[in-house]
């Protein structure tokens, strides 16, 4: 995540700061209390007081200034973590990792990670959140509430806010855990006003005037400061000022502000108007806006304004950013808008955007372009920065953040944003939503006559990427090969992530049409050919290699490549690291090294909010099966709950399908055939599933039918097994043939055809011996053990068969554990009610609660209740997300097969 450094800088203290010992003392209890609230309107000197207090605080402290752009859980979390890392570099690893994933982590997961990480910090520290009133996002309030719910020893949170934050303050107050400084504390007393005026004005002020000022400003710091500015100008204004402010026509600050600003030189006034459009700026950015060549002069001006307390300087000691005092900014911005026409203002935003872009602050550059109304160009900047972010394999939630800046009608009509959306869909494992987007992108590309050839070519490459990926997952090898061989070179070299994936899919497709040598050659050459400094492209190719070895059943090679992959990714890429653990888990499970398998699957599952979604999801499912195989039923039950929870959060049709298949497999392992049968007869299965992942569900169905021991089911199962086996052969998927031959053997055996059964099993064993598959047979139960014993009698691969038999419970005779299967509700996804569907449709039309209430003739409160339910069921926090998820998920069609593994 790119973070604006200036947000961590604290205000520089004025030289002539008046000491306010009573407030500093009051704040000292913040060193012992978990939460401190400094709550008062703008201009009461909240930030100054806190900054002053921190100077003398015995505890280390860190500062975070919030603004309206921070109303995003992920972004806020990233800033929070980065702020704490300013004191403890490298700390908060698990929270940081969560926030670096490609999607917003669930609130609970983030809150837990943060709490645990913070609890481990070695010393107490102070975290200041300045301008907390800028936060409206309820999820952020909840996050902070969670953090302070049971006070975390090291954390002392200090909130500076204009209005009381939506945190359980009352509860904290009652428990004596809240240190509070409010407006009535902050207002200058008569004595303080006297000292303040004496110090800042530098001459005697009559006591009547001091009293008048104190009364009239009500001790409001900002008003006193401006009054002092005016008084500093000349001796004769003292009485004039006193007269002016002793009137009752309110708006005292406006008057004072107007007077102060009116006294500035034309040069400064121009600077005011131009810079007031920005939330903050450096001297250099100021130059860029002013067209000024004289950098030294600008620096001087800004310092003067800081001394006059018109600007607040935020600094880390080296770099300095400036912002206006909030009241001043509002005042100036109104003036700037009145003074400049829209075109001029847009040009200023454009200039700021150029400066941000040049300095790598892409998010700010995009925001300034949007403020300038240059949506088209902003979309181009998003697209330009897409691949660097994808390549990095971290901080991918930036893509969703940027995409969210644009109004959806615009996004639908803009090529670069449709492409961005496709990448989002792809990394969020919702490739089912891709086809209409691909069609839209092609339409827009055809209409985009202004594109130069190079851009057109690279966009064609990207569109081809998604088409090839879809074709790959739909088992359409001819199309995958055609598209990839034609368009692969269209992808620019620096699109490392895209190129690596596309090549991987291509190689795996070649393997399915028995061009194994070519596939290996392609992958090997790609590894050699990588001249980039980073290993990102290589990492993608290694994942491709691993899938290759998995499909052909070469488990030893799989382990070897996965171990290298693990080493390569340990340093950099958690997204691909998950694959390494997943493959290692699979191989060790198959070898019946259950403890190792559980460790690897667990490592992958722990990375589930960071790493590749599909591999993490599979790993969680396999972890559950491994635990069951170890006889740890209650651990398996817990993992199942985690799987349900994780699936709920992801809302991908394909993953819901997988999760149900895993559950059925667990049921079979527990001997609950009825539960598995319920699933196997209520889900629709693809007759030609993808052999990498999707077919696993088909295999579970076959085993379920077999275990019902009903002749008609077994006949059906035999038929389906033969069809799938033919398909597995045609796609050269050795691993699946091993499993299908074994099932075939059991079917034949059940129908009394023992000799044919043993032939089938011999085929399976013949293919499996090289890789050393064990668990495939053990998981098929006692009848398989029996067949293996018969095979042994025939002296077929005796060493290997004995090895398998040794792994069966009781070394080849005992039965599976018959642990009772609890009939819990599998609420992997809770369907929406009819009413909720109606509300959802209205939400999609962007109607307000009130409008919806009117349309459905219910109260807005009821609408609110419905939307809350919808959010809960869809696992989202906002309308926009709800509509987005519902659209992508296609709520109505239950299973869209196929999705990218990457």
């Amino acid at each position, binding site marked *: 995540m790119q973070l604006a450094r200036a947000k961590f800088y604290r205000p520089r203290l004025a030289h002539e700061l008046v000491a306010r010992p009573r407030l500093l003392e009051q704040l000292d209890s913040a060193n012992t209390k978990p939460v401190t609230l400094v709550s008062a309107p703008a201009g009461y000197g909240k930030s100054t007081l806190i900054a002053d207090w921190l100077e003398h605080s015995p505890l280390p402290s860190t500062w975070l200034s919030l603004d309206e752009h921070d109303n995003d859980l992920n972004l806020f979390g990233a800033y929070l973590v980065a702020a704490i890392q300013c004191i403890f570099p490298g700390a908060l690893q698990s929270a940081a990792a969560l926030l670096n994933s490609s999607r917003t982590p669930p609130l609970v997961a983030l809150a837990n990670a943060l709490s645990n990480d913070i609890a481990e910090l070695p010393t107490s520290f102070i975290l200041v959140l300045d301008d907390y009133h800028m936060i*409206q996002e309820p999820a952020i309030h909840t996050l902070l509430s969670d953090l302070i719910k049971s006070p975390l020893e090291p954390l002392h949170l200090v909130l500076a806010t204009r*209005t009381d934050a939506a945190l359980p303050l*009352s*509860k904290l107050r009652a428990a004596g855990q809240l240190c509070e400084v*409010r*407006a009535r504390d902050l207002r200058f007393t008569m004595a303080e006003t006297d000292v303040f005026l004496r110090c800042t004005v530098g001459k005697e002020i009559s006591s009547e005037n001091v009293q008048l000022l104190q009364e009239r400003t*009500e001790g409001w710091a900002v008003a006193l400061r401006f009054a002092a500015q005016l008084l500093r100008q000349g001796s004769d204004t003292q009485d004039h000022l006193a007269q002016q402010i002793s009137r009752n026509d309110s708006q005292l600050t406006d008057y004072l502000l107007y007077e102060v600003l009116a006294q500035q030189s034309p040069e400064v006034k121009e600077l005011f108007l131009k810079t007031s459009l920005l939330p903050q700026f450096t001297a250099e950015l100021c130059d860029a806006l002013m067209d000024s060549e004289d950098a030294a002069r600008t620096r001087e001006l800004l310092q003067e304004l800081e001394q006059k307390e018109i600007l607040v300087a935020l600094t880390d000691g080296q770099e300095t950013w400036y912002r206006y005092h909030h009241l001043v900014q509002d005042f100036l911005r109104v003036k700037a808008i009145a003074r400049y026409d829209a075109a001029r203002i847009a040009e200023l935003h454009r200039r700021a955007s150029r400066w941000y872009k040049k300095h790598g602050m892409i998010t700010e550059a995009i925001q300034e372009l949007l403020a300038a109304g240059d949506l088209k160009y902003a979309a181009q900047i998003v697209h330009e920065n897409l691949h660097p972010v994808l390549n990095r394999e971290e901080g991918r939630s930036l893509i969703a953040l940027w995409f969210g800046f644009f109004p959806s009608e615009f996004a639908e009509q803009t090529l670069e944003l449709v492409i961005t959306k496709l990448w989002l869909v792809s990394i969020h494992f919702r490739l089912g939503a891709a086809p209409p987007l691909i069609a839209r992108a092609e339409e827009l590309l055809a209409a985009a006559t202004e594109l130069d050839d190079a851009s057109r070519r690279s966009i064609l490459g990207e569109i081809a990427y998604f088409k090839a990926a879809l074709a790959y997952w739909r088992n359409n090898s001819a199309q995958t090969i055609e598209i990839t061989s034609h368009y692969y070179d269209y992808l620019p070299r620096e699109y490392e992530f895209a190129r690596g994936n596309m090549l991987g899919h291509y190689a795996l497709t070649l393997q399915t049409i028995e061009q194994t040598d070519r596939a290996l050659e392609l992958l090997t050459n790609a590894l050699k050919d990588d001249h980039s400094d980073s290993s990102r492209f290589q990492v993608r190719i290694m994942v491709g290699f691993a899938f290759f070895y998995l499909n052909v059943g070469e488990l030893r090679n799989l382990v070897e490549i996965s171990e290298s992959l693990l080493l390569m990714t340990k340093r950099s890429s958690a997204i691909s690291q998950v694959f390494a653990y997943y493959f290692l888990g699979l191989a060790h499970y198959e070898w019946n090294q259950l403890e190792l398998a559980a460790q690897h699957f667990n490592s992958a599952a722990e990375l589930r909010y960071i790493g590749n979604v599909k591999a993490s999801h599979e790993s969680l499912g396999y972890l559950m099966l491994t635990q069951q195989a170890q006889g740890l039923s209650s651990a398996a039950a817990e993992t199942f709950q985690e799987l349900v929870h994780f699936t709920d959060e992801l809302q991908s049709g394909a993953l819901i399908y997988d999760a149900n298949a895993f559950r059925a497999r667990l049921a079979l392992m527990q001997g609950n055939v009825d539960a598995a049968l319920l699933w196997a007869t209520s889900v629709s299965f693809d007759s030609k599933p993808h052999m990498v992942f999707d077919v696993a569900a088909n295999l579970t169905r076959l085993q379920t039918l077999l275990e019902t021991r009903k002749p008609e089911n077994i006949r059906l199962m035999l038929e389906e097994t033969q069809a799938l086996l033919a398909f597995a052969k045609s796609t050269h998927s050795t691993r699946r043939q091993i499993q299908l031959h074994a099932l075939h053997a059991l079917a034949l055996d059940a129908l009394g055809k023992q000799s044919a059964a043993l032939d089938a099993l011999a085929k399976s064993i013949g293919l499996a011996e090289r890789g050393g598959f064990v668990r495939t047979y053990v998981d098929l139960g006692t009848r398989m053990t029996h067949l293996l014993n018969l095979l042994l009698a025939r002296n077929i691969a005796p060493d290997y068969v004995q090895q398998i038999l040794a792994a069966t419970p009781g070394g080849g005779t005992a039965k599976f554990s018959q642990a009772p299967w609890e009939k819990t509700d599998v609420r992997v996804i809770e369907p929406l009610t009819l009413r909720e569907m109606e509300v959802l449709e209205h939400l999609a039309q962007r109607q307000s609660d009130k409008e919806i209430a009117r349309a459905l003739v219910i109260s807005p409160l009821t609408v609110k209740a419905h939307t809350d339910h919808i959010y809960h069921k869809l696992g989202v926090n906002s309308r926009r997300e709800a509509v987005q998820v519902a659209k992508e998920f296609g709520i109505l069609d239950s299973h869209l097969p196929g999705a990218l593994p990457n």
Partner: protein
Amino acid sequence: MTPLERAEPQANGAYLKPVEYTPGLGMDTLVPYLIRVQGNLDAIWLDYFAISIVVSAPPGEPPVSTICLQDSDQASVLGILNSLYDHGFPLLSVERLEA
């Protein structure tokens, strides 16, 4: 409140006698408020604000929650109004009670 009068300089440069300043309610003054919203306010709110809540629900009408904010400055009044807004409680009235 005194009606607003602008001070105009007279010919000799002296100002008219300014309207006397009379202090009123300050941003920091602590006063009790009564806030009424439509909807059923949960007791969880008591954790958040120093308030007491009475909920009434006349038959056939939507429930009304009356919130009594004890001595509060403007920051806490605005804080609770923001929260009520965020949680979708339509505001019926805000009333300052005489201390």
